[in-house]
């Protein structure tokens, strides 16, 4: 219903938009070492919203993402996506990790259609090639479809993994520090690309990061997590106008928001 509407320019959380993801009373204790990685997490993602979670390393961000994606079962609580409980990996969830993780024996194009090939077989994968080429053009890799990953730079490989995530038209994108292995210039560029792609695809995205600037520049809302046990301590609405630009990093408002989050996290959390 909100599909055709433009994103709200000022109000952060698309308050009117339909909830896509609902997480209630979520907790996780790893059976192996009785370690409580998450307690009492509640969160709702709305259609078209970009939400980030920041927190020091080891505070349970990846655990939260793995539970949301159905890779890991929660100890308590429920995770519901598009009205259906998440009980395992699903094709309407797109994931991206810190490493691009492209298979070296497959070309860029073959890597991108891998999820289709695994889920629906070779015929469906062949049928998805035009869509894959379209996605490659979307991320500026149009000329690299038939190249092997060894010949791609780090940034190009991550762009290819964005395509692989988008190929099955997921309802939500779960991103676990996707650009943190890239150098800073590439990373800034990739963040702007991600913003553009999310806007074009009207994607709902959930980003884990330990970069405050990255979180602020991309997000409608930021969730701040604290460790031992991992929990969400505050939600911050980012009221910077969209589309965001890298120049906004130099605005006073941007500085205020970053300072506020840094205060929340305590000085020791980020160098």
């Amino acid at each position, binding site marked *: 219903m909100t599909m055709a509407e433009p994103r709200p320019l000022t109000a952060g959380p698309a308050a009117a938009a339909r909830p896509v993801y609902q997480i209630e009373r979520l907790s996780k204790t790893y059976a192996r070492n009785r370690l409580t990685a998450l307690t009492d997490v509640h969160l709702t993602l709305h259609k078209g919203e970009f939400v980030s979670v920041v927190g020091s390393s080891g505070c349970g961000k990846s655990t939260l993402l793995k539970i949301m*994606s159905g*890779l890991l079962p929660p100890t308590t609580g429920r995770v519901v996506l598009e009205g259906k409980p998440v009980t*395992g*990996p*699903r*094709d309407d*969830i797109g*994931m991206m*990790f*810190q*490493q691009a*993780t492209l*298979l*070296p*024996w497959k070309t860029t194009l073959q890597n991108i259609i*891998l*999820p289709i090939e*695994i*889920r629906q077989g070779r015929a469906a994968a062949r049928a998805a090639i035009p869509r894959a080429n379209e996605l490659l053009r979307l991320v500026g890799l149009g000329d690299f479809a038939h190249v*092997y990953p*060894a010949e791609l730079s780090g940034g190009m490989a991550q762009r290819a993994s964005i395509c692989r995530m988008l190929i099955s038209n997921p309802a939500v994108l779960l991103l676990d520090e996707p650009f943190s292995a890239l150098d800073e210039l590439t990373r800034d560029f990739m963040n702007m690309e991600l913003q553009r792609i999310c806007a074009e695809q009207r994607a709902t995205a959930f980003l884990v990061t330990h970069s405050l600037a990255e979180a602020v520049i991309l997000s409608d809302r930021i969730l701040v997590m604290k460790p031992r046990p991992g929990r969400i301590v505050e939600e911050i609405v980012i009221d910077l106008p969209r589309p965001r630009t890298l120049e906004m990093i130099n605005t006073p408002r941007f500085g205020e928001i970053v300072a506020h989050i840094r205060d929340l996290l305590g000085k020791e959390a980020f160098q």
Partner: protein
Amino acid sequence: MTATPDPNADTVWVEPVALIDRIPRWVAMLALAAVVIAIWDLATARMAWVSPIILPSPAETLADLIFVGQNLASGGYMLEALWTTTRTVFWAFLIATAIGFSLGVLVGETKFGERAVMPYLVAIDTMPKVAFAPLFIAWLGFDIASKVALAAFIATFPIIVSTAAGLYAASENERMLFKSIGASRLQTLFRLKLPTGLPHIFTGLKIAAVGVMAGAITGEFLGGGQGFGALIRQSASTMDTPRVFALILYLSLLGLALFFAVAWLQKRLVFWNKADRPGGVG
């Protein structure tokens, strides 16, 4: 002029390159061979430091090389023997690959294999396998079968170990990716773990190629029969050292052929693994 350097001059100097890096590889190899043969010739034919029964001169060895080569080329009894050994090596390698790969997948892919089967395999692997030769002869006779069994037995273990190690080689990220796109266990095995493990598996196959040669010849030494090993033993028992040398050289061609067949297959199948390229022998 004085030693005052011109501050505006280019600071160019010659980057030193070692002599060995400047000559082609085949030249270096030939040069080494020439030196070794010259010393060999000096020690045997010219100075007679070494008895010809222990070490024949290069010329004697060459004469026997030509004799054996003529026999092989004319389809004589030596060709027959070489053919017997080749068949032994071929079957043993095939059997070792099939059993080694299957057990490797069992050990590398299943908890049962890892926990229950692997300890026994390690125990057997530590035994001196040649000691089983009399058993194989007792079970399978003096024909080719007992040699095939011994050679396969020796060559199976490196393939098991390398296949299992190869299946562990896929990274945590790659496993998570496959899980997140809903891959089944078999899909993960065939589309991720086996391709990722291929370089390891080929390392095992190369070790097995060497092992299968050693096993076949040992079997022929101990169990008689028609193979090249038996020829070598006969020549050695009559102190015909040049003949032994010549036979060993031709035999090594068989080993090299097997090794390079495996290396060639690896290049075709593992085309993406650049780490294996320099040198080509790896």
